[in-house]
């Protein structure tokens, strides 16, 4: 029997008042951070926020669309590279940012059409997306030679593009965003994406998407063209990942083939697993927690970071399958059931 997890209502219900309060509080906390923290902290937090966009992209697709794409990094990397190449060619960043969202979506539309309309089963979907990101990685890595130029920009293979331009203010291209500006932008984008995806789930599209995750055959028999909804979800997720990639390029002034690689793809899964895929806020927390841990371990001299990450992943899968946040809710639910059960026994007949 399905145990209802505390604080986890079915996604189709409009968010309650407390949720809006929470989202506002979250936004307020983020936006006032520059008052309390120095610029180095902001810089690392910006990285977490940008990566959280990637985690959101995956958790939306996996948690609500039921599609586990190991290759969200493909769109992340594509977004980053598109931004870098376009911005360097055009000397203008607003358009580059838009293209960096649209191009991954187009790519996802083609790839998704190929897979989803081909009725490729779940596990193969995961594998193909992984293979795609690996192909892109290999492809990009093989562009070290000086013949690989897009417009006036060398792709630079292994080395990536370390001259990725800072973002300009759209209405005044002479002003470039500094570290704290990028932080604000990332925070706003993350909150908007989070709220946007959450609200998307209560639209007709969102509710049908969730129904497909729950029972695809039933949705098809009712008359929904499930492939269309899945494809659209895939495309939206790709856009979010592309945005994340472009912002990551803005954050570090760098894009490189590592954005596509297996390790990066693994990390995304770890974030979402740790945070719990049954919510959208969980993976954001998961990203911040895991990335902070990785950063912190890197300065602690404890030895191999991968050793610790490996243990984290194994423990999460073995003991907290729902992810940390929902696990807390699950324990609360069991406690509540136990308590109410006890009360029922005590109550007079």
């Amino acid at each position: 029997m399905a145990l209802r997890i505390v604080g986890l209502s079915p996604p189709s219900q409009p968010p309650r008042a407390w949720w809006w309060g929470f989202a506002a509080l979250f936004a307020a906390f983020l936006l006032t951070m520059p008052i309390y923290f120095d610029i180095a902290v902001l810089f690392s937090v910006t990285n977490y926020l940008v990566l959280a966009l990637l985690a959101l992209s995956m958790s939306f697709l996996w948690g609500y669309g039921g599609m586990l794409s190991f290759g969200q990094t493909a769109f992340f990397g594509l977004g980053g590279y598109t931004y870098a190449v376009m911005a360097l060619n055009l000397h203008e960043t607003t358009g580059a940012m838009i293209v960096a969202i649209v191009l991954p979506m187009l790519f996802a539309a083609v790839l998704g059409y190929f897979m989803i309309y081909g009725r490729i089963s779940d596990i193969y979907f995961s594998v193909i997306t992984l293979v795609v990101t690996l192909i892109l990685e290999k492809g990009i890595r093989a562009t070290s030679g000086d013949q690989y130029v897009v417009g006036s920009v060398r792709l630079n293979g292994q080395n990536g593009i370390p001259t990725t331009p800072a973002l300009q203010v759209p209405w005044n291209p002479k002003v470039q965003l500094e570290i704290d500006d990028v932080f604000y932008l990332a925070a706003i984008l993350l909150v908007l994406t989070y709220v946007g995806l959450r609200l998307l789930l209560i639209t007709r599209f969102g509710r049908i998407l969730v129904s497909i995750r729950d029972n695809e055959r039933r949705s098809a028999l009712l008359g929904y063209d499930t492939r269309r909804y899945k494809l659209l979800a895939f495309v939206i997720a790709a856009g979010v990942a592309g945005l994340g990639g472009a912002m990551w390029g803005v954050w570090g002034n760098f894009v490189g083939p590592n954005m596509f690689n297996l390790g990066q793809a693994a990390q995304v899964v770890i974030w979402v697993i740790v945070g719990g895929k049954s919510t959208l806020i969980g993976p954001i927390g998961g990203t911040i927690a895991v990335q902070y841990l990785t950063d912190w371990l890197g300065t602690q001299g404890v030895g191999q970071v991968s050793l610790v990450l490996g243990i984290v992943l194994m423990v999460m899968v073995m003991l907290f399958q729902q992810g940390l946040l929902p696990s807390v809710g699950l324990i609360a639910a069991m406690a509540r059931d136990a308590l109410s059960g006890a009360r029922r026994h005590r109550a007079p007949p």
Partner: protein
Amino acid sequence: MDDVAIYAYQIGLSFAIFILISLGLAVIFGMMRVINLAQGEFLMLGAYFCTLITKAGVDLWISFFLAALAVGVFGMIVERVMIRYLYGRILDTLLATWGLSLFLVGGVTTIFGPQSESVAATLGQVTVGAFGISLYNLVVIAFALALLLGTYALWRYTRFGLVVRGTMQNPAMAAALGVNTGLVYTLTFGFGSAITGLAGAVLAPIVGAAPPMGVFFIGKAFITVISAGHLPLLGTISASGLYGVIDGVVAYISSSVIGEMTVLFVAIILLRLLPLGITGRMRRGI
């Protein structure tokens, strides 16, 4: 004539490497529906055991089998401690073994350091026209074929093979017939691990042993096994054959990057056309 021989050699070696890196994974995935992402690290462990045992003064050929045994035992421990709690949950297993993979890379780096270890198998070379061919590479091809035949024979002709196949098809029925299904799972996982360990050991004299080596192979192994479909042996042979030919020929006439990318590309097309893999439509066989 030289050309024919050299093509045959390139294809043979490429095929053998595909077989070696994916057969263990195929047994584990095909029989148990467990995707072991730490398979590359099992390969790495095999290579490390081989170099360590050889350094302790044991003959290379014996150390291959000791390495296989060691990795097999390790695999059984992993099955007992971790995998068995995750049966039927294909994604969770995948994630847990991914964790194991990271853990092993970190652990081996901590213990043995980051540099690669090596073991020499200088058997010399044979000459075909203008070309020299490393004799050891021919041994590798022979090993791959032997491993295939051995696995086939074990599955097809022994009681163990029959019990395993029966258990995988219908565990409840097997249990009712008095089969200790838990033990069968452990042994099958151990067997798959041992094959992988052996593969790592056999490849060690060519590629050495280094902590990140698993990552170099896991992608290819994964793709081979997924393309294979649900019949582990027949599927692996066909997929390895296909990719071996493509990789061998393309890598020889152009470059190894193009070779690998062609393989990945063909894999995608193949899965689009045959969503259940090469053997997806076949009903019988192993």
